[in-house]
């Protein structure tokens, strides 16, 4: 009987906790009741201005400043390399993929892009005009050093 009472108390406490969270507007990002299906936000527009963005830190993979809709990157073909490979950059004036992409993991240089670097979008992504849901608190290393 005692055990049953304890169990009931625990359950009640858990329920109270859950309602407390709900009333604290825990779901603010969602902006709506939990049981209600919200309209999906509009698709954000992909930046297509061909202007290089500043890198947030030296090793950051550069972002893609253009649309890549329908670009095929698979076993058959890598559409990105149609402009960014070493051979064609003079004609296309696109930045050549960095030399690190031509190295295998032992530091040997290869004739073509290393298989481990083949899928561009593992690191390089397009940017959109979507409004960030949360503010970005990233601090640039220069500001961080100055503030010391």
């Amino acid at each position, binding site marked *: 009987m005692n055990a049953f009472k304890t169990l009931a108390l625990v359950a009640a406490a858990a329920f109270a906790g859950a309602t407390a969270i709900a009333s604290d507007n825990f779901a603010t990002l969602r902006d709506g009741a939990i049981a209600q299906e919200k309209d999906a936000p509009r698709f954000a527009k992909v930046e*297509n*201005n*061909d202007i290089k963005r500043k890198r947030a830190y030296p090793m950051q993979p550069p972002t893609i400043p*253009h*649309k890549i*809709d*329908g670009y*095929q990157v698979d*076993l*058959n*073909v890598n*559409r990105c*390399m*149609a*402009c960014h490979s070493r*051979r*064609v950059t003079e*004609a*296309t*004036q*696109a930045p050549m993929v960095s030399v690190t992409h031509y190295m295998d993991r032992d530091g040997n240089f290869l004739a073509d892009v290393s298989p481990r670097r083949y899928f561009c979008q593992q690191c390089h992504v397009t940017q959109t005009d979507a409004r960030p849901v949360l503010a970005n608190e990233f601090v640039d290393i220069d500001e961080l050093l100055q503030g010391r």
Partner: protein
Amino acid sequence: MKALLLKYWRVISGPSKHYSLGFLTMGGFVMGVIFWGGFNTAMEFTNTEVFCTSCHENLYAELQDTVHFTNRSGVRAICSSCHVPHDWTDKIARKMQASKEVFAWMTGSISTPEKFEARRLTLAEREWHRLKANDSLECRNCHQFDYMDFTAQSQRAVNMHSTALAGGDKTCIDCHKGIAHRLPDMSGVDMAGLD
């Protein structure tokens, strides 16, 4: 056999015994309309999406992901928009070539997706060569260079279109391969149209 042919020749070369000149003229006219219209209708049917996709349904599935199928303004291309010339004489010539493809279909030379993938580069190269030879005519049926607004294009598109394309050094298909289909194994194929 010879006697039979001679008999028919006599009938055809002789004047009409029972039918008036007016009837024969009008009849010839009406039948001409029916046969010519029927021929063209049948040929146009072979240009429809229904006809193409009755075999090439895998290609139709690929097309549906692309901008030539769905886009913001709802203008779209069907198979024949790009793969069949629009002018009548050129169209007839292409249709006659296509009769070989009917033979290939009957013999089942590309009867499975695997056989198709194995042959895909060869088939694609045929179309690239055709478009290269006619200066990408089927692209230009819609995408007319004279009416391109460079200010509405992205900077890198302008860089290419205002130089290589404007100068006639390159044609659409040199750079825009695989825009409506998945590309085959492109190792060794010049993707940027440099060669």
